[in-house]
């Protein structure tokens, strides 16, 4: 069932539709909340409050945006308020000035000395797709904020750069820079994991 169908069924009082929506989105809500608030526990609280707000507001949801967008906006607004109350400062990208690829992989002229091997080669011959997916999931889990929230919203949930910018209160240019660092970090972690399996 897609989100709209689940929502319809939830309006009819179907508990399993609620559980399914929770399974789909709870972990993303926690990541968005974590970007704004001071602790994991507090992020979990915000995500929980978001579900209550959804149950309360569901009859007023007009479907002008997708359910996902509506849900994430509720979460971001609540998390922002909690973050302000906690005097939490929004995380800046610690890797902002660092290179995408470790400096030792290049020679003095700036050309590869340790070139990358396409994952697809390694995967076709020795690894299955599930291994790549698991490595990518673990790598995203290992990211720090703000990279984790940006990569999750943009690449996992498939939101546009503009939507991510609105949810996180960043400029689109900032989202692109953070996304670039986050993706580079995920690629690096996956490369290590894939190398270990060959």
């Amino acid at each position, binding site marked *: 069932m897609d989100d709209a169908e689940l929502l319809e069924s939830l309006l009819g009082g179907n*508990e399993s539709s609620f559980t399914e929506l929770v399974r789909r989105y709870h972990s993303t809500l926690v990541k968005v909340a974590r970007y704004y608030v001071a602790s994991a526990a507090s992020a979990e609280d915000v995500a929980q409050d978001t579900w209550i707000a959804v149950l309360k507001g569901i009859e007023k949801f007009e479907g002008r945006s997708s359910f996902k967008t509506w849900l994430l906006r509720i979460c971001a607004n609540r998390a922002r308020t909690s973050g302000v109350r906690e005097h939490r400062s929004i995380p800046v990208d610690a890797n902002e000035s660092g290179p995408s690829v470790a400096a030792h992989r290049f020679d003095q002229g*700036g*050309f590869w000395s340790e070139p*990358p091997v396409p994952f697809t080669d390694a995967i076709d011959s020795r690894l299955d797709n599930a291994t790549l997916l698991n490595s990518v999931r673990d790598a*995203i889990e290992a990211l720090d904020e703000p990279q984790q929230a940006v990569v999750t919203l943009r690449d996992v949930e498939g939101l546009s750069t503009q939507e991510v910018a609105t949810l996180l209160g960043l400029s689109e240019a900032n989202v692109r820079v953070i996304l670039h660092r986050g993706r580079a970090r*995920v690629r690096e972690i996956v490369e290590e994991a894939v190398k270990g399996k060959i």
Partner: protein
Amino acid sequence: MKLLPSPLVCRDAVELVSDYLDGTLSRRQRRRLEKHLAQCDACTAYLDQMRSTIAASGRVGPEDLPSDVVEGLVNLYRRFRSDN
């Protein structure tokens, strides 16, 4: 006379890949990168890795939630239903 942009080295080329895949590079930067990619297998491999990484990110699906988290939320739902 129009100055030709200086050729990219690999170290700088990799910094353009994410924006390249999102289609947000300026035309000039895109041309510089494509020129480099056309003659550099290693950066083409990097681009492929990045493409696979992004595609896989879109397919990872939701994490498995701990059962106590799901239970807690289902209880929340039941309380809400009985109160409303």
